[in-house]
């Protein structure tokens, strides 16, 4: 392993992508993720890669579609309003079964919203985002190290399953600096016989396409794709458990909210309250199984989110409402404090005891 260096989360993503063999980046400036573009602009020309500032997020994602169709590792990054613009392209990438990485360093919304951190694009990320039946694999890193690690993993997983993967971060994760070790990655790239790199007049032509005018065909394609999604749910779900063994109340939080929730767990335990944390690392697939099992032995859950409560719906579904699920949230760029989380724990305990 190499030496630990201090890096911003955004820079760690960029350097990790390069380590993972990504040589094509297309983006458009937007706070709070512009460091990714700036880093790529500086690095790509030096390593024979391509950085291109596109005319819009719409164009950027379609450039990604082109490179992904040719079978090369490629990424784009943006923040919430820009990611909305990319949804058309993401749907096409999903529909054409292409691997690509999309970074969303979220800010408050809706509309132009604000530029401070937020987690209010959860629905957009995990429920589809664009039109049609599809999923992205969604990673929610909670440290600068994880920003790097899951960027690398995202490229591998995207290639393995031929699908777009999203790294869902937020302004805090993007802007903060922490020590990070960037692993030396061996090129994990796999053969892509479906790619359009020219037929060399040696094979029938490949077509990158998401158009199926016969409904029977489109239905079958979607059925097949969802069979693949079942495999992913089996193989790729990641989460972290923290002090849940004896917990009465379990917090559920991802990303920066999980970091805050960890502080809250420590503080609550100092006060004699048995609190634990389940941190989904993949938001899709969602760690439903562990939540469902946990529901059998705890008194309740609190979904800690920087939104008006989006993941809470998945927590309720996962736990089949066996136990109360409450929300502890701030939104619009405001950040929930550990004290607020502890208060919500006390409130829930008073309800269930």
């Amino acid at each position, binding site marked *: 392993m190499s030496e*630990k260096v*201090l890096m911003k989360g955004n820079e760690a993503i960029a350097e990790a992508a390069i380590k993972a063999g990504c040589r094509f980046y297309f983006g458009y400036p937007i*706070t*709070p993720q512009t460091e990714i573009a700036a880093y790529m602009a500086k690095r790509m020309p030096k390593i024979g890669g391509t950085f291109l500032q596109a005319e819009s997020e719409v164009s950027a994602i379609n450039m990604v579609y082109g490179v992904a169709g040719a079978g090369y590792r490629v990424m784009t990054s943006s923040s919430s309003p820009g990611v909305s613009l990319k949804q058309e392209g993401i749907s096409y990438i999903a529909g054409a079964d292409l691997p690509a990485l999309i970074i969303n360093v979220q800010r408050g919304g809706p509309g132009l919203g604000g*530029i*401070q951190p937020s987690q209010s694009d959860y629905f957009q990320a995990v429920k589809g985002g664009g039109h049609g039946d599809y999923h992205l694999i969604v990673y929610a890193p909670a440290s600068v190290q994880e920003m790097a690690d899951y960027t690398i993993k995202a490229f591998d997983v995207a290639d393995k399953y031929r699908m777009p993967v999203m790294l869902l971060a937020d*302004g*805090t994760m993007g*802007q*903060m*600096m*922490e*020590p990070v070790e960037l692993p030396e990655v061996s090129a994990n790239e796999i053969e892509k016989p479906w790619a359009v790199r020219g037929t060399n007049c040696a094979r029938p032509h490949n077509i990158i396409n998401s158009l199926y005018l016969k409904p029977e065909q489109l239905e079958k394609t979607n059925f097949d794709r969802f069979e693949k999604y079942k495999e992913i749910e089996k193989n790729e779900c990641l989460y972290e458990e923290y002090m849940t063994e004896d917990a009465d109340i379990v917090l559920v939080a991802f990303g*920066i909210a999980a*970091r*805050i929730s*960890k*502080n809250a767990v*420590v503080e609550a335990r100092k006060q004699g309250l048995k609190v634990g944390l389940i941190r989904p690392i993949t938001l899709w697939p969602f760690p439903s199984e562990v939540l469902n099992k946990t529901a059998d032995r705890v008194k309740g859950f609190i979904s800690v989110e920087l939104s008006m409560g989006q993941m809470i719906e998945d927590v309720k579904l996962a736990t089949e409402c066996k136990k109360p699920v409450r929300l502890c949230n701030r939104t619009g760029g405001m*950040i929930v*404090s*550990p004290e607020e989380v502890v208060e919500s724990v006390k409130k829930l305990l008073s309800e269930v005891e």
Partner: protein
Amino acid sequence: MTTQVLIAGFGGQGVLFAGKCLAYEGLYENKQVSWLPSYGPEMRGGTANCSVILSDEPVGSPIVNNPDVLIVMNLPSLDKYENATVKGGKIFVDSTLIARKVERADVDAFYIPATKIAQELGIPTLANMVIVGKMIKETGIVTFENACEAMKKVVSARHQDLLDANIKALNAGYNYAE
């Protein structure tokens, strides 16, 4: 042991850079560290701040709401964060720019005319490092030697003159006697 530091002042005073240096110093001592800036338009002249955490354990939330150590380089920052500081915490005030005293009695307050010292040394942009020097002295959060070593990581080799100036500023703050 975890120390939560909040550094605040006007954009352009180098509060983000000062925090970055502190984070590097912690890293140099093999501590767990995090650095989180305020970002946005305030960086262009308004009030800026950054949260720095140095700890022997993994850092939880990187956001410092209640600092153990507060460094303030303008009055609005003192007004805003004085009451947020933990009981028994330490507040460092650039007394060149802030006329008033810390009102709380349950914290230790330190006053250093960092801006004036930096001007007198001919390095007017490094008041931030002067005040960090003082803070290192009074908190022992890192050793002075390690702070100087860590500076080499922050200031790139091609800016050797800047490295010397930064160490000069740190030193002036460290050895300042009220």
